């Protein structure tokens, strides 16, 4: 009975929330704005809240808090045990994918891998060093624009520019790092956010250099040891060299392996760095800055290297993005990108390499697959309802994304893979549950 009352109150609040913004829509007519009423959508939403709340309360009554915690822990343990098998399987799948996937899936794979790489890069800053960076997209933008501009003005190729783009982004990372060294968590987040916005505003307005909002087009594609991927099949192209029929899919597959290699490089460097004193200092810094200082760790250089190396990989990813798209504009580097990458890192469990890859797969690939599935259903069942849903899904993409972020934090604040294997341990190396890390037993 009390559950019913609670659900009714929730529905009442939902009514208050949804009637003005969903029930009344402002539409533009030739006489200015008018209001139109949308009762069905409002009723559906309020009903959803009512029944959702009711279902949640009945579920909660059946399961005690202890049970939930236990099942959570069991889930985390199962996941980390499975991790040993999941990672190689995932890697094999990633390597083999272009051989059996169609063009669409290879393209999707490139997108997912770009985010995996960005996630791994940001993971160094947020996951390992514990510095919350909301302006990661700035380094991505620096990398993309450096490659585009070098290619445009000096005719340099992708492989020459890749290290340059990375180094430039790393320099920007250090430049940002210096002023914000003294700031604590939340302030740091806002300053990095502001930095990302500053870069974007400058890219929009410095038209003589960046061509402003129109962006830069005609960015050259990467070459395979000097061989171009060109459709004419003439001298000096991949098709001519290997004596095969030229096709676009060859270039797409090549790009796929480039980003796979870059992402794996990021992963490898991160894993190696974690073994070095530097990586250990990062993790120590994440857990307790004051303790770090008192143990004589140079906090300044530790933070700066985290920023620089994170930015380096952001720059690489940016150069790759520019060469894949062959066109960049400031619109690709909004705050939403930073938030997406951060969400991937957080959902992945702050510090877990496998978690980041899984989160990128779920978040970037998941919605795309859902859309594909819905349109497939629509084709199969000749139902306009599914076709409509599939068509409208991109509209709701960010909405679902934001809600998922909130729900994820509420349900599993430590991310999907929330256990941590310490890089250094006395005696046996054991997985530590996140709850215990929070209690200082890690």
């Amino acid at each position, binding site marked *: 009975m009390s559950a019913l009352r609670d659900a009714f109150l929730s529905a009442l609040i939902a009514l208050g929330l949804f009637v003005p913004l969903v029930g009344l829509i*402002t539409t533009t007519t030739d006489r200015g704005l008018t209001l139109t009423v949308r009762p069905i959508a409002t009723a559906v939403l309020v009903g959803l809240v009512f029944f959702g709340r009711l279902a949640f309360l009945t579920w909660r009554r059946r399961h005690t808090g202890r049970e939930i915690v236990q099942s959570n822990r069991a889930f985390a343990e199962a996941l980390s045990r499975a991790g040993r098998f999941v990672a190689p399987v995932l890697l094999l799948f990633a390597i083999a994918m272009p051989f059996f996937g169609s063009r669409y899936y290879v393209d999707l794979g490139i997108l997912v891998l770009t985010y995996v790489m960005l996630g791994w890069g940001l993971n160094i800053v947020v996951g390992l060093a514990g510095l919350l960076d909301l302006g990661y997209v700035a380094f991505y933008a620096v990398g993309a624009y450096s490659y585009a501009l070098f290619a445009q003005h000096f005719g340099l190729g992708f492989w020459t520019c890749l290290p340059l783009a990375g180094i430039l982004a790393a320099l920007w990372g250090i430049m940002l790092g210096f002023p914000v060294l003294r700031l604590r968590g939340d302030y740091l*987040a806002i300053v990095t956010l502001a930095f990302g916005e500053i870069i974007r505003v400058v890219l929009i307005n410095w038209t003589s250099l960046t061509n402003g909002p129109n962006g830069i087009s005609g960015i050259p594609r990467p070459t395979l040891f000097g061989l171009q991927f060109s459709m004419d099949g003439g001298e000096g192209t991949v098709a001519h060299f290997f004596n095969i029929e030229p096709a676009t899919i060859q270039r797409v597959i090549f790009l796929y392996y480039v980003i796979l290699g870059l992402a794996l490089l990021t992963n490898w460097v991160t894993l190696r760095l974690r073994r070095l004193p530097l990586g250990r200092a990062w993790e120590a810094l994440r857990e307790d800055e004051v303790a770090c200082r008192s143990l004589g760790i140079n906090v300044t250089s530790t933070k700066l290297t985290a920023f620089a190396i994170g930015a380096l990989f952001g720059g690489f990813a940016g150069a790759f993005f520019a060469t894949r798209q062959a066109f960049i504009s400031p619109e690709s580097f909004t705050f939403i990108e930073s938030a997406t990458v951060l969400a991937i890192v957080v959902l992945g469990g702050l510090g877990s390499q496998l978690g980041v890859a899984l989160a990128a797969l779920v978040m970037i690939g998941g919605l795309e697959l859902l859309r594909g599935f819905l349109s497939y259903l629509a084709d199969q069942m000749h139902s306009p309802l599914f076709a409509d849903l599939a068509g409208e899904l991109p509209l709701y993409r*960010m*909405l679902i994304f934001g809600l998922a972020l909130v729900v994820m*934090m509420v349900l599993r604040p430590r991310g999907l893979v929330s256990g941590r294997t310490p890089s250094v341990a006395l005696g046996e190396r054991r997985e530590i549950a996140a709850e215990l890390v929070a209690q200082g037993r890690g």
Partner: protein
Amino acid sequence: MVALRAITNRVCALAYALQQLINGVTLGMIYGLIAVGYTMVYGIIGMINFAHGDIFMVGAFLSLIALLGLAMIGLTWVPVALALALIFAAAIAALYGWTVERVAYRPLRGSFRLAPLISAIGMSITLQNYVQVSQGARVKPLAAVLPGGVQLMEQDGFTVQLSWMQIAIVIVTIVILGIFTWLVTRTPLGRTMRACEQDLKMASLLGIDTDRTISLTFVIGAALAAVAGFMFLLYYGVIDFYIGFIAGVKAFTAAVLGGIGSLPGAVLGGLLIGLIEVFWSAYFSVEYKDVAAFSILVVALIFLPTGILGRAEVEKV
């Protein structure tokens, strides 16, 4: 002759500067109202309520819908329509603020420190896209409700204009802030809020319902943000679903500049940010006004980490 021109130039420049001062104060009032919400929440639970800027945007949309609805049912007496729309927007936005806290922040209290911030970012994205999906992505224009104003002075063809709208904004802000100050300093609710701000754990040990106090803080902050949104709508006449982001970051800058946790500081910071932005646009470049505001944030945090009116925070180990 040259000297005379220099004098008239100077007078004209003075008039121009005066006009910018008026515009800056108006804008600063709006930022100040939003900044109060940031500073209150930060003071009590030490988190940046990232979705606050979007509550401001929701408030602006609610005001627009209320004004259109009132016009449709034939209520065209401007002062009453404005007052009703303001109350409606503040009430519903307060409900939004309450819901955001209840859904996204309360379950995370006591969790690790990045969790509420990330949840807040998720809430901000949700609110933005919720309004985009439900109300459309296009800009919403509104015809001027209070046209006209007083001419303060005229010099060489340049008139210093003080519009009714600007007068209304300043008066409403001062009245609202007056009520708010009374609420915080003179009422039992204000006392519990201040107690929670000083020491949340101690306050709960002394029998204060901290959850309720935090909820009410969000409700009040959201209502103030909605007032700001209402005035933003009337002042600029156009809104879209994206206004909350930039305004939110600037208002947060204002809160930091004034000293986070300090209520007069938030208003003072808001005024400063408004003035800096307007003068920067008037004398340097409009395109880089956001860069100017954000740079102020960085500079303030480096050289004045406690803000103008803030207290130095001592970290105990």
